């Protein structure tokens, strides 16, 4: 294995080696160097891209996706104070939640972990979030993106209602809307006026990362 802590970090993530990963993170933290911390965050992001590719290609499964998301979140928790002390800016706030009637939180949580690992501030509204609560959060937090998750097909109608409410309150133009979950599709996203559909957490994170660079 490479002695480069950043390479080690990436390979530990891809080998699902929690202890090795946290040791590598500690080594970076001990340097107390914001640039090294940023390198480590970039290495984590590269690792997560590979995880995403393996998941999309059917080589890896939900377990690996969830576990690497948790590992990345833990690593980011230790690295981000260094980034903040250097004045590095967050990529922006993302409000996430599972729509009304749907109590599934797994996909939302994985996306939250991945997006947080990519440098976004996450405001998680939880599950079964009412239309007005999404709108209130959009007004209060002024996010760059609002993410809605929906696993149950019977609840898919709530997604469009949230977007309508954002428009009604004049909040829609200021943010992007990304949706995901087993009940939703690309076509559905177009129908309800969402900006993007994410088939998985990694793609979703790529999408909001691209938005943040626009």
């Amino acid at each position: 294995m490479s002695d480069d802590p950043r390479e080690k970090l990436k390979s530990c993530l891809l080998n699902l080696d929690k202890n090795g990963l946290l040791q590598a993170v500690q080594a970076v933290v001990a340097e107390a160097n914001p640039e090294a911390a940023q390198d480590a965050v970039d290495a984590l992001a590269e690792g997560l891209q590979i995880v995403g590719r393996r998941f999309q290609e059917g080589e890896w499964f939900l377990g690996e996706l969830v576990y690497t998301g948790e590992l990345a979140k833990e690593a980011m928790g230790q690295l981000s104070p260094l980034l903040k002390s250097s004045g590095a800016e967050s990529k922006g706030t993302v409000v996430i939640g599972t729509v009304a009637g749907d109590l599934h939180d797994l996909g939302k949580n994985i996306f939250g972990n991945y997006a947080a690992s990519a440098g976004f501030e996450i405001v998680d509204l939880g599950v079964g979030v009412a239309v007005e609560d999404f709108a209130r959060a959009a007004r209060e937090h002024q996010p760059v993106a609002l993410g809605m998750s929906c696993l149950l097909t019977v609840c898919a109608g709530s997604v469009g209602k949230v977007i309508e409410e954002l428009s009604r309150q004049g909040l829609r133009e200021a943010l992007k809307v990304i949706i995901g979950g087993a009940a939703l599709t690309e076509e559905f996203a177009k129908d309800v006026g969402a900006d993007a559909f994410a088939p998985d957490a990694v793609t979703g994170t790529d999408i909001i990362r691209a938005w943040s660079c626009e």
Partner: protein
Amino acid sequence: MAAWLDEMLSSGPILTDGAWGTELQARGLALGEMPDAWNLSHPDRVEAVARAYVDAGSRVVLTNTFRASRIALENHPEVDRVVELNRAGVAISKRAAGNDARVFASIGPSGKLLLSGGVSKEQLAASFYEQAEALCEGGADAIVVETMADLAEAEIAIEAAKATGLPVVACMVFDSGKHKDRTAMGTTATQAAEALGALDVDVIGANCGNGIEGYIPVCAEYAAASDKPIWIKANAGIPELKNGEVVYDTTAEEFADFLPRLIEAGATFVGGCCGTSPQFIQALKDKLAK
């Protein structure tokens, strides 16, 4: 194995029921409304679904209790009526079944993942034991642990179901991987058959998924890896949202056309999951009669 189940199995392929959610929606269940709550608020409409399946030819009907466990109902106003919901669910299906069908009570997944720490094994066990006990007290003939993606969670639910002394059917959902023949956690049908068999369940199965055709190889893999009777309840294809409506691409007749191959692959219990209806069971019955 219970004598009645042994006798049932000796009579050849057994038709189960189809989807409940869409049938309840057709009877007024609102978008986002918890179907299981209807066991107490609209028992007559729930019974109408079970009766439609029995009338169509189902010799096994499930119960409207898929989500009626304490963890799956977390944050739902009915969470403190878990026991009532399950007992009522069984009573409803028993009324519809009469002497024409057996009632296999449904236990679905918690919606949480052990791996992510979203729930502990102890919490899952408490939730599934409570549900299984209520289903047993309600008078179920057997318990079906279904739509499980994670063997670790399935194992806990199966132990809870077995503790009741009732026959247990254990079903995984295969919808992931390159060939859509793995569970979301990557488990193959062979691995599932071996793991479920080791838990000494009465029947192993697969439900939901990506359509009936994909479950033929899964069924064959089960049959090669296990001597247990096999239960297959597939979806009517892959759901699509069109104009805000959920649409499945397989018709009842197309679905039933796969029945001979499914039986040849080793299936004993056959029915439908998401997107299927009493018409699908009728079509399966007609196919069996040929």
